[in-house]
């Protein structure tokens, strides 16, 4: 029930992920040259002879490359299996879908758990700071390796949406269509604040050991678990929590108070508490604390307007990319107002933009869940973009 150190990624069996190793490495924005660069990825569907049907799906903060298949670590279905597959909105009968683990991650792409060639030891907390641009630059190297020039579409939710925007800003000629979902062109003060609480929870764990926990055969499971619990609340909504758990109390052997014992403040457990603890404890088994710190920091740094003289329209001027911005009405982590800021900037840039707010009471996580209007939006936007892409190809 409690979040305690459990056999996990720190000492568990090492799973070998499919990855490409690029000895040329990657120049990070901070000035560090990271070499070699390994990018773990999965692909679904077949690349067309013209190499024009590739869709890159970018995962969120704690996602991974196992998009549409059983996750080898958790045994659960891929995180977007309901969206990606034969005949599904992102149709693998028609498109070649690529998903890679982000730079700084812990599922096979170069990150804090990788070996630093200079020291011969794992980077751990010495892993250089990275940005969304670095994450996208690493993906671009994978896309080069796969022999794809222009991506038909880049799609992502939450931090995946930040990557989709960064792709469109950094490689406008390589992105025919971009779909930033439940995201923002900058990380808000509130979201930085949430990330900071997550990080402080990790730092406060006695097993943190200044980030060198693996040298001690430990993981800061309690801190990372608390970080996840808090973050998980921000992914839901008050309404969703009420509907799912209400004020119901759990009555089972594990929480029942023995008759002999004195009354206890925490003798009973609300179902929502139990749920959050479960979220925390299962998370620490699959995620590395240093990766969590590295990637949340990359999100905090994200601010496209600030990097372009304070005008968010600047990175998208003359952009030929077709955009479809999607937000969810009950998402308070990446609220519609932030998507609207993005849409207005895209209009100022004269870009082709669709914008839909999906009615849902399930908060930020709605983009991962069953939302028929959202499915229709993705399917329709892709179909429309494909028609235009074909039209352009025909004109040449």
């Amino acid at each position, binding site marked *: 029930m409690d979040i305690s150190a459990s056999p996990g990624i720190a000492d568990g069996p090492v799973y070998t992920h499919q990855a490409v190793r690029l000895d040329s490495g990657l120049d990070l924005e901070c000035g560090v040259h990271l070499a070699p660069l390994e990018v773990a990825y999965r692909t679904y569907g077949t690349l067309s002879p013209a190499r024009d049907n590739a869709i890159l799906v970018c995962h969120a903060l704690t996602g991974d490359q196992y998009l549409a298949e059983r996750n080898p670590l958790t045994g659960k279905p891929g995180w977007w299996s309901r969206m990606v597959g034969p005949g599904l909105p992102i149709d693998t009968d028609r498109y070649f879908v690529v998903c890679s683990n982000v730079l700084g991650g812990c599922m096979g792409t170069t990150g804090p758990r990788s070996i630093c060639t200079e020291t011969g030891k794992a980077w751990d907390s010495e892993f250089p700071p990275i940005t969304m641009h670095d994450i996208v630059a690493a993906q671009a190297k994978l896309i080069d390796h796969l022999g794809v020039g222009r991506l038909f579409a880049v799609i992502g939710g939450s931090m995946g949406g930040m990557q989709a925007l960064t792709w469109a800003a950094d490689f406008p000629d390589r992105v025919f269509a971009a779909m930033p979902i439940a995201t923002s062109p900058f990380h808000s003060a509130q979201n930085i604040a949430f990330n900071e609480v997550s990080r402080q929870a990790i730092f406060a764990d006695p097993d943190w050991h200044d980030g060198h926990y693996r040298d001690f055969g430990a993981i800061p499971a309690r801190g990372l678990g608390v970080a996840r619990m808090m973050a998980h609340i921000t992914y839901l909504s008050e309404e969703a929590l009420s509907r799912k758990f209400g004020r119901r109390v759990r009555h089972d052997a594990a929480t029942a108070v023995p008759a002999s014992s004195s009354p206890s403040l925490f003798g009973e457990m609300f179902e929502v508490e139990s749920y959050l603890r479960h979220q925390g404890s299962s998370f620490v088994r699959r995620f590395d604390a240093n990766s969590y710190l590295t990637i949340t920091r990359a999100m905090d740094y994200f601010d496209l307007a600030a990097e372009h003289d304070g005008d968010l329209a600047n990175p998208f001027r003359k952009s030929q990319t077709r955009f479809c911005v999607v937000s969810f009405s009950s998402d308070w982590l990446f609220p519609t107002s932030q998507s609207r800021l993005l849409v*207005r900037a895209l209009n100022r840039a004269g870009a082709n*933009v*669709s914008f839909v707010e999906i009615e849902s009471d399930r908060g930020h996580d709605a983009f991962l869940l069953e939302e028929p209007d959202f499915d229709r939006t993705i399917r329709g936007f892709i179909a*429309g973009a494909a028609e235009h892409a074909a039209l352009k190809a025909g004109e040449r």
Partner: protein
Amino acid sequence: MRVDQRLIAEMIAPRARVLDVGSGDGTLIDYLYRTRSCDARGIEIDMQNVTQSVAHGLPVMHGDADHDLADYPDDTFDYVVLQRTLQAVERPREVLRQMLRIGRHAIVSFPNFGHWRLRLQLLTTGRMPMTPVWNTPWYSTPNIHPCTIRDFLLLCEEEGYVIQQWLAIDEDGARAPWRRSIRLANLFGEQAMFLLRRAGH
């Protein structure tokens, strides 16, 4: 497609860049794209309509005429279309200015409050008129800025817009025969449609 939408489409040159403000279910932009190879986009206030349009592959964004035109750069479009909506916006004059700033041409249609049936009803009953075109009671109507064809002509004159084409149409959207006389059109036209451009071009 409604007959008046067909009339609008006839005003638009092939391959033009078009913004349809209040694009509804996307019929017009779909038609312009498919039959005229236009780069046609839409803005729509009703989210269900937006979702339906995007689900049909049309580039439509949620927004409205009063707030979302100001963002576009000058001359982004060849035509900006406002169908049957002018009377419902907060600031009609400002919306027209924005339309003719971001577009080289504006196509505007609106229900004519000068129609004889409205005049007669007001005269004989002393109450706000109700007709098939003006079919919501005064307390719940979205049509907060009704105008007549003459009113609109006056505004165009004040603002210095050139009227390239105008026509009066009946409720079904069919072209009405009083093309020559504004007086007759203002009396018998249920709706009016204008193709405008800025002066000095």
